[in-house]
């Protein structure tokens, strides 16, 4: 029988390739080097979803443009009564006098093409104009912010050193991060979530700090705090600084940041290096402000505010602040990787400790063995020899699922193990359908061989129908699901497909072999 031998080859090929794919999972390092991936719920680790606050990136662009506009007007000798950022993402500008208004309008047409006139009104010879960014530009800024944030976070995690991290965009402004096997989750979260905006600002030493603390903050200045933890009591002490709002230099010109140990206090500090442009800026700032205090501000927290003793050349600075070694190490990473263009919020977190993962694997496997053995015994008891055939199919089924998981590089999760267990129960269904049909046909007085033939041919379509619907449910689940649930959909789909194969092709082959080749007249069923 030509047909028969072809089927033998097909079945052997499928089983062999499944076994080959399982081998690397059992013994690491074997070809084809594809292990079954364990989900975070099984191996432990952290899953995070961050949302980039893109609105903030638009606001900071507007803030920068407001500042630039002020400089431009000064340069063009156009006097104004006020330029301010209002409602987050608009610039409001008030100009008096026709002369000023005319030259401003010329400026608006020629040099400020990126800005859109939102509204315009003249009252008492005062022109009030509100500018904002065109829709398209806003969208672009937001998109860029998300992409940049993704890149920066990827950079930080790479430098932190996590095995096989998975970092990707999800939707428009969400970032999915999976860090398998990570232990210090709090530290990782801080590293990822820190905006790390480094700014150098002058202290406002002309105004009174006490008055400012009472609410009398001079325009152009702001109150920022330094936080120090008292090592004895563990209490955080906040000390206020009156700092000028204007940023003289930011971390964007950084080329390197390294942890150093201060020989005097034996405390770690971070040494930073600027690129050429940054070094020039730093030199000029220090030159112009000798004997003044320069605050080093990170994410709106003052780290130190040393007095500038002399002009600093060479573009090197240091950030001190009673760091622990870990803090200093992480801070150096975020400074090297750069600031996030906008703040990010953690909107979903799932962390599984490694011991829980190991427990889940153990309990999942035990329930699989128990369930599997019970079903196997039941089938032998109920169908005798035929039951044994179904059991062979069942065991091969599990091998095929495992091979499939490794071959497709799918991820096995705890619900995924549940899916395999469920498949054990449901996989025998196809065989049950066939066996019941064969029994029916034998009751009609057919010989075993023709009953088997009739049983298979009548049951095949039913089996296909029944399994396609389960497959539909599994595929929808795959589309909808995240992480663990997706793993369930994967094993369920693999289970459905492999049980079709084992029931319709493999067990049929065994029947044919016994009844035709071995010429066995009656098979217990």
């Amino acid at each position, binding site marked *: 029988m030509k047909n028969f031998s072809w089927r033998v080859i097909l079945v052997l090929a499928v089983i062999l390739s499944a076994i080959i794919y399982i081998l690397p999972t059992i013994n690491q390092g074997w070809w084809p080097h594809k292990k079954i991936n364990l989900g975070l*719920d099984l191996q432990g680790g952290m899953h995070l*979803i961050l*949302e980039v606050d893109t609105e903030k990136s638009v606001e900071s662009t507007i803030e920068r443009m407001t500042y630039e506009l002020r400089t431009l007007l000064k340069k063009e000798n156009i006097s104004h009564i006020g330029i301010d950022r209002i409602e987050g993402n608009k610039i409001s500008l008030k100009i008096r006098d026709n002369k000023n208004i005319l030259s401003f309008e010329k400026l608006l047409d020629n040099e400020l093409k990126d800005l859109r006139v939102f509204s315009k009104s003249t009252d008492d010879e005062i022109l009030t104009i509100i500018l904002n960014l065109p829709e398209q530009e806003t969208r672009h800024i937001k998109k860029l912010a998300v992409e940049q944030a993704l890149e920066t976070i990827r950079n930080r995690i790479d430098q932190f050193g996590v095995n096989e991290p998975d970092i990707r965009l999800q939707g428009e402004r969400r970032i999915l991060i999976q860090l398998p096997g990570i232990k210090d*989750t*709090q530290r990782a*979260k801080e590293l990822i979530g820190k905006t790390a905006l480094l700014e150098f600002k002058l202290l406002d030493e002309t105004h009174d700090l006490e008055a400012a603390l009472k609410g009398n903050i001079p325009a152009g200045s702001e109150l920022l705090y330094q936080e120090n933890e008292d090592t004895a009591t563990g209490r955080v002490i906040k000390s206020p600084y009156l700092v000028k709002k204007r940023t003289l230099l930011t971390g964007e010109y950084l080329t390197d940041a390294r942890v150093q140990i201060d020989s005097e206090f034996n405390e770690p500090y971070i040494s930073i290096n600027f690129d050429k442009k940054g070094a020039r800026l730093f030199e000029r700032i220090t030159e112009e402000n000798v004997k003044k205090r320069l605050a080093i501000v990170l994410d709106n927290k003052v780290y130190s505010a040393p007095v500038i003793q002399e002009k600093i050349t060479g573009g090197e600075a240091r950030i001190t602040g009673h760091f622990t070694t870990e803090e200093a190490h992480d801070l150096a990473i975020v400074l090297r990787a750069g600031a996030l263009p906008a703040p990010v*919020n*953690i*909107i979903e977190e*799932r*962390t*599984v*400790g490694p*011991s*829980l993962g190991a427990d*889940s694997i153990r*309990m*999942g496997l*035990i*329930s699989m063995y128990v*369930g599997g053995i*019970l*079903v196997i015994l*039941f*089938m032998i008891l*109920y*169908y005798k020899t035929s039951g044994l055939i179904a059991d062979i199919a069942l065991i091969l089924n599990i091998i095929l699922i495992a091979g499939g998981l490794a071959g497709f590089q799918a991820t096995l999760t705890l*619900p995924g193990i*549940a899916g395999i*267990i*469920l498949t054990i*129960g*449901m996989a*025998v*269904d196809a065989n*049950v*359908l066939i066996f*019941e049909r064969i*029994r029916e046909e034998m*009751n009609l007085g057919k010989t075993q061989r023709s009953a088997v033939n009739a049983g298979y041919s009548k049951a095949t*379509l*039913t089996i296909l*129908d*029944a399994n*396609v*619907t*389960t*497959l*539909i*449910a*599994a595929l929808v*689940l795959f*589309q*909808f*699901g*995240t992480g*663990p*649930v997706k793993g*369930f959909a994967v094993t*369920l789909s693999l289970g459905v497909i492999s049980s079709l194969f084992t029931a319709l092709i493999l067990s049929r082959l065994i029947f044919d072999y016994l009844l035709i080749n071995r010429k066995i007249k009656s098979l217990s069923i």
Partner: protein
Amino acid sequence: MRFIKSDINLNFIGKSRLALYISATMILISFISLILHKGPKYGVDFAGGTLIQVKLFAPASINVIKSGLDTIDLGKSSVQQFGDKEENEYLVRTDISVMTSQEGLSGKVKNAIEATTGNKVEIRRIEMVGPQVGKDLREKALFAMFYALLFITIYISGRFELKWIISGTMAAALMSSVYFLSFINLSIPILIAAALILALILFWVLDLKYAMGAIVALIHDIIITVGIFSIFDKEFTLPIIAALLTIIGYSLNDTIIVFDRIRENLKKYRKKPLDVIINRSINETLSRTILTSLTTLIVVIALFVIGGGIIHDFAFAMIVGIIIGTYSSIYIASPILLAWQKRGKKIRL
């Protein structure tokens, strides 16, 4: 060995009125329980908030742990024993989803419990879902179930009545209108409930009887499973949605096998009345129905008993679903085909 004699002939159809009352009662109880509990009880996946699984290295009473947690501001929180008693594991839940302090929420919880019980505490699992994500997931879960039902409709009407085009067009129209309507500010649950009712009306108008039987049975299964979950005060989480979708697939499996036999027998015995044919078909497939339910139940019960705490509720949902699904394919799906004929519509092939 056989449990069911090959010449068995139980009168299932004769009992269908009784089954109708039983089902109606169960559905009613489900709704009453849902109303009394003010809707389904959502886990952190859907409600938002934080769940922290802690393990203590020595036993401690729940009240001591609670008093420890009272020292930190946790908002609306609860503590619950998890898994076996000797494991000393607890679930701490709170509706807070962000914590800005230095040590983070889990660190705070850990320190607070360690301080009051004097025991070392291990954080085993943290699940934090922001409120917006919770709402998104809730809506996604509803959409998933709805889409699954429509895809299944297409397949059943296509395979059994060759109405691929009618059912496909209907499903596509329903899906796209729900998709577009979901953008305007409608409540998603109401929208999907309305779409499902509309779908059932369309089944009637377009004469999609097999789809009607199958889908009504599935909705029946889901409502009762959700109801039983609500009665036992169990939480809905993502894995439970996975279980519900699997129940859809499983219950349909049973239904389709009976339907297949009905179709086959309709060809075979053209002279016999439909109720006899349906009853005969159910009897002929009864042995298989019970065997498969049995093997599936064996493994799911194994999972329920020894699979561990995290998978416990999933296994529970599956057990309920398998029992209800088996019942509904015999007593709900098939009688609907019969009801169709009684209403003057003809069952054709």
